């Protein structure tokens, strides 16, 4: 079942993600992907995550597809102009990739090539619009295509954005441009997320809440200080600080969050950031 069908079926949907390696050794990454087989409805493949040069999302999505997994092709506007983005969308389609997550992308200076030229020729909203044009059988300027692709297009939203109203306005623009589902930035503050979901309920578009596994109290504090829109409440930080078995506590926290979020949104998107092997345990504890 594809991601689109999973969402249409009304079930609580789970997606997760893998990050391609910096280099050509892919066995570990494929092993991580195998751990998710049968447990998730889609696997995001990050696009030069954190602006670090590495193996690309397109090739890895293809490898997942070949293995019968359901890839979600993350596509950012940071590194390609409008010609390259459109071409890679056609590339993705002929390689059997159907899910695209359209993102603006991190700024280049945050990664390991801070001297790179940041592109941002398109932005997330216009990229979604371009995908829709390709599906209608023309490129973005109206030239006919010999064969049109067809995608299930997703986008992201930051429920902790500042101000959140600006994020909601942009979310609505993404929906108008053609986004059919959303994944969010990491959620820890269930109360705040509930308020956000009430605000966006009229959009009637599936939202998968972001879950990042807390590895330590230090990581939580780091994110509170440095990651825009992420807020880990103090009780969770204390729980991690006092944990005897940090892994176990982390899994429990994530599972608890998932249980709390279950009634509020259509699913969750688990970003393991190196803890891919823990994802099945989280799903076990969350009874998913």
């Amino acid at each position: 079942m594809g991601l689109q069908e999973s969402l249409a079926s009304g079930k609580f949907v789970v997606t997760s993600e893998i990050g391609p390696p910096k280099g050509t050794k892919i066995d570990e990454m494929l092993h991580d992907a195998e751990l998710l087989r049968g447990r998730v409805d889609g696997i995001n493949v990050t696009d030069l995550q954190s602006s670090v040069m590495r193996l690309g999302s397109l090739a890895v999505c293809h490898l997942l597809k070949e293995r019968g997994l359901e890839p979600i092709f993350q596509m950012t506007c940071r590194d390609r102009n409008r010609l390259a983005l459109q071409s890679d969308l056609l590339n993705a389609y002929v390689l059997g990739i159907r899910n695209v997550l359209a993102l603006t992308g991190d700024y280049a200076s945050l990664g390991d090539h801070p001297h790179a030229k940041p592109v941002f020729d398109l932005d997330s909203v216009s990229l979604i619009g371009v995908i829709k044009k390709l599906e209608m059988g023309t490129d973005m300027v109206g030239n006919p295509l010999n064969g049109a692709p067809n995608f299930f297009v997703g986008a992201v939203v930051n429920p902790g954005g500042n101000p959140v109203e600006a994020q909601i306005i942009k979310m609505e623009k993404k929906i108008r441009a053609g986004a059919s589902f959303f994944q969010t930035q990491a959620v820890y503050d269930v109360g705040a997320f509930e308020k956000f979901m009430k605000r966006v309920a009229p959009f009637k578009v599936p939202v998968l809440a972001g879950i990042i596994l807390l590895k330590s109290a230090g990581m939580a504090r780091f994110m509170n200080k440095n990651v825009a829109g992420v807020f880990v409440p103090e009780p969770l930080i204390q729980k991690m600080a006092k944990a005897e078995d940090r892994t176990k506590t982390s899994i429990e926290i994530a599972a608890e969050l998932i249980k709390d979020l279950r009634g509020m949104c259509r699913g969750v998107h688990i970003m393991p950031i190196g803890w891919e092997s823990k994802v099945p345990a989280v799903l076990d504890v969350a009874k998913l």
Partner: protein
Amino acid sequence: MLLSQQKPLEEILKSLEGEKNIFILGCNGCAEASGTGGKAQVLEMKGELEKAGKRVTGFTVVDFLCQKALVQSRLRGKAKEVKEADSILAMTCGVGIQAVAAVSSKVTHPACNTIPLGGMRGEWRGSERCRECGDCILDATGGICPLTACSKYLLNGACGGTTKEGKCEVDPEMECGWRLIYERLEKLGKMEKLHQIHEPKDHSKMMPPKGLRLTERWALEQGR
């Protein structure tokens, strides 16, 4: 206003290698304001070059080194000193350096780097900047340009990288341009403008229009 910054002395001296006699040109325009090419910096440079064993045949500070006619006439007044020089060291921005190189038969060395401001500033000091994009959208953004105020020049609203303090995650010193736009539109009661979807920029409009090349003004600038 073009902002310039003096190159490291080491780099300047390397570019002057094999040349003994140097003529220094300063600029009383933006370079003076940048503290890189006014009279004080020219005299300082003269001292440094002499310390390094060079002979400074002469120097002058021109009001605007980017004005070729002006540069040409001032160099004529210093014809003897310029003639004696192996090269000219121009302490100004990239436009000034090119103007000097265009009107002089001597090699022109840049003493400064021109620092990107992410768009042109007005002639008078201020923080507003213009990318000269050829298709102004300030009407939709409350008079704040997202091409210069946003790190990613986003047209359709903030990314997820606005910090709790409302800054840009790329640079904690920098305001999130889209937060400023949001607040301005809120103040103006024009929030509906935020819902407008903007098409990607037409980058061909960021090139000087062909028609401009046919004008008298352009021809004058080209010295035709």
